[in-house]
């Protein structure tokens, strides 16, 4: 009986293995299509845009040729694709390709020049002005990404900041209860943490050389010189005030500046947000 069960188990395991193998053989989880884009004369065309559109699903994958005119589009499922190629100064081309294996044969495309006479050099533009670079674009992309995160974190920080300021009205004074004070301190800590994260993304976003700072962003940057130091001073003074209150003392000395510094800081922070949100 045990032998019979064992054989059944082995048979089931073998069937299962065969089934899985069959599945994996039938699937090509990531075919890579590569090729070249060149002129009719055989010169490589850099920065040509190549897109592969799956004609069954409509999914589009894109790539760009490098300096040698070579492109690579990974992770394509088997099927029929419409390959479209375009490049500045050339007539766009479209062809169809059927992918059946993980390494389909390369697709080599020649583009005809669209320029019958005039080119950018005829207008007096230098190659440095007319040729872009992937590195420049990557720098711009990183900058934009970091500033978007900065913007979102900055808006998120507004909530605990406002709550901290509002609770500040009941956190000090003659009240002896520590609940509001503890909550005020906790919210203040959260605000400080979020603020530091917000500032990080702004400070370390890549700078684009050769650009002059113009417009409302100047105010946004200038106000940082108020709320930045304020966000350092406020928790320090707050800690001093917290300690004094915890000892049953009235807040005095430098610690009494905690409230005014916090108000100025919050005001500058709000003005910084408004400076880039509204049109003045």
């Amino acid at each position, binding site marked *: 009986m045990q032998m019979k069960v064992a054989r059944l188990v082995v048979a089931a395991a073998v069937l299962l293995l065969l089934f899985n193998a069959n599945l994996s053989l039938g699937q090509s989880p990531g075919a890579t299509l590569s090729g070249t884009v060149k002129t009719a004369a055989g010169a490589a065309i850099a*920065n040509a*845009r190549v897109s592969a559109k799956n004609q069954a699903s409509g999914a589009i994958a894109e790539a*760009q040729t490098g300096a040698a005119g070579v492109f690579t589009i990974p992770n394509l499922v088997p099927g029929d694709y419409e390959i479209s190629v*375009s490049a*500045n*100064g050339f007539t*766009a081309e479209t062809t169809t390709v059927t992918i059946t294996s993980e390494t389909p044969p390369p697709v080599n495309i020649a583009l005809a020049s*669209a320029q*019958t*006479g*005039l*080119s*950018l050099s*005829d*207008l*007096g*533009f230098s190659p440095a*002005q*007319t*040729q*872009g*670079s*992937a*590195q*420049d*674009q*990557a*720098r*711009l*992309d990183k*900058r*934009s990404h970091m*500033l978007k995160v900065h913007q979102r974190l900055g*808006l998120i920080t507004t909530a605990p900041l406002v709550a901290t300021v509002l609770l500040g009205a009941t956190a000090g004074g003659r009240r002896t209860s520590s609940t509001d004070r503890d909550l005020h301190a906790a919210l203040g800590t959260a605000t400080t943490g979020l603020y530091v994260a917000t500032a990080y993304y702004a400070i370390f976003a890549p700078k*684009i050389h050769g*650009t*002059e*700072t*113009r*417009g*409302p*962003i100047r105010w*946004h940057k200038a106000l940082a010189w108020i709320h930045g130091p304020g966000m350092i001073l406020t928790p320090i003074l707050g800690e001093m005030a917290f300690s004094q209150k915890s000892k049953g003392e009235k807040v005095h000395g430098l610690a009494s500046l905690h409230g005014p510094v916090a108000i100025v800081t919050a005001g500058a922070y709000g003005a910084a947000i408004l400076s*880039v*949100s*509204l*049109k003045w």
Partner: protein
Amino acid sequence: MATALSLLAATDSQWVLEQSTLSYHVSHPLHQVDGVSHAARGKGVCHEGQCEFLIAAPVKSFDSGDSNRDLHMLQVTRGGQFPMVTVRTRLPETAAASGSIHADLEVEFAGHTAHYKDVLFQLSLQGNQAKISGTIPCKLTDFKIDPPSLLTVPIKNDIPVKVDMSWRRQ
């Protein structure tokens, strides 16, 4: 005027862009933005009655008054990789006779080419100078540009480009 134009049609000629103002318009619920460039260069070559024009401007020359916004625009339009916007068109030399032109434009921008048919331009001819003005009805989707957003609200798809140009015949 007709005699002058027919004389023009008989010989090869060139046109040079002397002055230009190109401005794009972007709409957002909180902002209406215009970015202006005076850095376009252009040339027209006329041969056997047909003229081919090429106008180009660096994408980073467009100034909306806010450098942060302009840099973001540069990034969204892939200006690091495709730093120029170009417009090509072909016109018969006699097109200038009517005072307005309907032109088919080929615009290359952000790594894509879009075609605009029958775009109306007003034309004023004074001797060897021609002043042309009009609006190209561009859309972000024409160039596969993801619409940027402010405070999570995206800008509108329409980005019409107003064109004012002064050309001189050489």
